[in-house]
């Protein structure tokens, strides 16, 4: 991993080839079909691509850990919405009125804390009751969404703070604030999963849980930490996004889990756990955003976007299987 060059990346994960293919396709198709004078692969457009990948991307990093660990989290969309509400409610709260813009770090902290806490609830239930994470988070997907509605009924929660909006819209070294968050999170999670004991143990647990238990790895706490991490990241994603937009509908974040899982699977992470790469997950996220952007660029409508994304997901799964098939004489089970 010392010399990360493009070639190694391509070999390691076909997702980058897919992205390349998308870029070429949309550039060529765009030059015939698009109304825009600017090319699809314009630098500004690519920078925007990264920025727009951030809300899904930041959470996807958490989902990658969870899935590598052998679990799944269906509740992230609802966690995202709750964190957003906490952020905006805190900023409008009369309690912090005298603080001026100093309310911002408090609001951020509160949102991140709540996100982490919700993750911890999922982790704790899965750990202590032994109920499968799929079911635990399917339940909390409903439950957390219920909590979202309890804040403000079915009304949106809003608070526009222009200092915050300016911060969120800023560009540093050409990259948007959201992009920086995405990149830093990616780097941090990459480091966590590849260089630390926690990360390596998470791989081991996903790979062979029995073996990990026998080796004395405490499966429960690792699982709990991972759920707290994804809760934190879902909240971070909300913090970054809603700092800029300033208003959350109670339905926001719905179906995010589906997009996120799609991105992680496109990135090559196995649903059975134990294998998966953080960099390829970033690739999966970018591939989906690129697909959406590209289809919009060439004038495809909603129905087409849905059809194409659904089909590509199945196609990738199919190709992955075809590539890994060993031959006609394999055992047929």
């Amino acid at each position: 991993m010392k010399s990360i060059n493009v070639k190694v990346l391509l070999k390691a994960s076909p997702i980058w080839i897919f992205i390349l293919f998308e870029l070429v396709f949309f550039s060529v198709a765009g030059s015939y079909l698009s109304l825009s004078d600017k090319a699809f692969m314009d630098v500004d457009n690519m920078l925007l691509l990264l920025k727009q990948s951030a809300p899904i991307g930041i959470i996807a990093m958490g989902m990658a850990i969870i899935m590598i660990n052998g679990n799944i989290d269906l509740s992230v969309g609802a966690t995202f919405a709750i964190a957003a509400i906490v952020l905006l409610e805190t900023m409008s709260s009369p309690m912090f009125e005298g603080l001026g813009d100093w309310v911002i770090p408090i609001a951020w902290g509160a949102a991140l804390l709540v996100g982490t806490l919700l993750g911890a609830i999922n982790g704790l239930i899965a750990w202590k009751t032994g109920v499968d994470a799929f079911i635990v988070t399917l339940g909390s997907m409903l439950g957390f969404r219920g909590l979202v509605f309890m804040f403000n009924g079915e009304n949106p929660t809003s608070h526009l703070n222009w200092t915050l909006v300016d911060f969120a819209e800023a560009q540093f070294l050409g990259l948007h604030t959201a992009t920086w968050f995405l990149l830093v999170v990616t780097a941090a999670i990459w480091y966590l999963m590849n260089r630390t004991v926690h990360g390596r143990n998470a791989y081991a647990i996903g790979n062979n849980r029995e073996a990990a238990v026998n080796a004395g790895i405490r499966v429960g706490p690792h699982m709990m930490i991972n759920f707290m991490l994804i809760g934190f990241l879902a909240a971070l994603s909300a913090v970054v996004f809603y700092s800029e937009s300033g208003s959350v509908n109670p339905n926001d974040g719905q179906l995010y889990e589906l997009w996120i899982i799609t991105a992680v699977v496109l990135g090559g992470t196995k649903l059975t756990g134990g294998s998966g790469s953080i960099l390829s997950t970033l690739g999966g996220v970018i591939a989906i955003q690129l697909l959406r952007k590209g289809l919009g660029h060439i004038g495809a409508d909603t129905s087409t976007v849905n059809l194409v994304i659904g089909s590509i997901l199945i196609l990738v799964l199919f190709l992955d299987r075809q590539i890994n098939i060993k031959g006609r004489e394999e055992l047929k089970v």
Partner: protein
Amino acid sequence: MNTPTPVLRLENIVKTFPGVRALDGVSLSVLPGEVHALMGENGAGKSTLMKVLGGIHQPDEGQVIVNERPVVMNGPLEAKALGIVFIHQELSLAEELSVAENVYLGELPTKGFGRVDWHELYQKTDAILAKLKVGFDAKTLVKDLSIANQQMVEIARALTVEAKVVIFDEPTASLTDAEKRVLFDVISDLQANDVGVVYISHRMEEIFKITDRISVLRDGQYQGSVATKDTDEEGVTQMMIGRKLDLTRKESNHELGKIALEVRNLSSGKAFNDVSFQVRSGEVVGFYGLVGAGRTEIAETLFGLRNKSSGEILLNGEVIDVKSPRDAIEKGISLVPEDRKGQGLVLGMNCRDNMTLPQVDDITAGPFVAEGAEIAIFDQYRDSLDIRTPGWKQDVGNLSGGNQQKIVIAKWLSMKPNVLIVDEPTRGIDVGSKSEIHKLLRKLASKGLAVIVISSEMPEVMHVSDRIVAMYSGRVTRTFECGEVTEDNLVQAISGVSKLA
């Protein structure tokens, strides 16, 4: 002669699970530098005892004493810290990770803030691998290793700490002879360093080759310990099952019938090549060879689970084409597979349903399954095979290994096959049930069934077979008639020493 202080003592260990008294006052002591065999039938409490020793279970009563100090161990890491190391029977590795990460699983060296110290990790692992004389290094991914090499990784784990006691649970199940020798060298090294070794195995020849003392458990109770040199197989068996075991083979006293199954020049991919043999009705043909020699793959091809690449299969003189297990079943071929829990049974299903699974389409009343007829089948085979279960409603997952295996055999016998293929019929089954199953196979043959027995245990093939087909690396090296087989020439045939006969 003064007795050295035991490195490990167990005193009156009691462990109960809901409804079961798994360990009932077990005492045991392991001396430094001795190899101590622990034996017992399946369900005798060996695994529970080992889990107590490994810190996975905590005893309800009694004490674990390490170096004359009573200890309480809450988890495998604490056990390891006390110098008790456990080598598991079933491969317990994370395949996607490197060899080094597996060897130090659960205790990766760190350098602050939870960061892994890769340099130290690789260095230490390579040092251990060098001792084991293996041909791979610390950075290799486990998934790229052969099964035998994976077992060596498992063994390497024992050498990561200053072990006082190392427990081996059936370590040789998938090792070649050469690898076994390395393992035994490792064990004698440990011995030389005054480490106590607990060795669990069903394989008598190994027990008598390397152990100093033998302790026996039966039904969760300690039956006593004897010096290995003071006893023999018969003696140990008697301690284990509480009675004498009749191991002598009765010559087949029935006439062999026509050729039931013939295989001509059969090949399938890289698994096996140009295999030919015949099985007559009334005959038991044993297939013997190392793991990976292609025996199981032949069975799978005959049963339609694998495509052949060339050659032909003849049943009662007619060429047949078996594309799926369904085809095989319809033509009267049955397969009792190698992996009882993975391939033979649906553990969450009851005994009756498991037994009638292959013929569930045929025992019907109108569109429904005829449950009465099913129960009749179950009753018949429960009686004839002496299956011990509270009733047909019992989930097979709750039965002992031997009874589970009998359910699988019953399942295929009830199909009234012409050819019965049995793959590793007694793997993981205790001695008592083993001999019952051997008798059963002989009896079936005497009733005119053509039987193929695949086994990795030499005594077993020699005991049950009329003829033995020896395989090495996907090819048949020699076919032995009943009279001409000896341990020596059989070992030669399966290790590639003797050329094609």
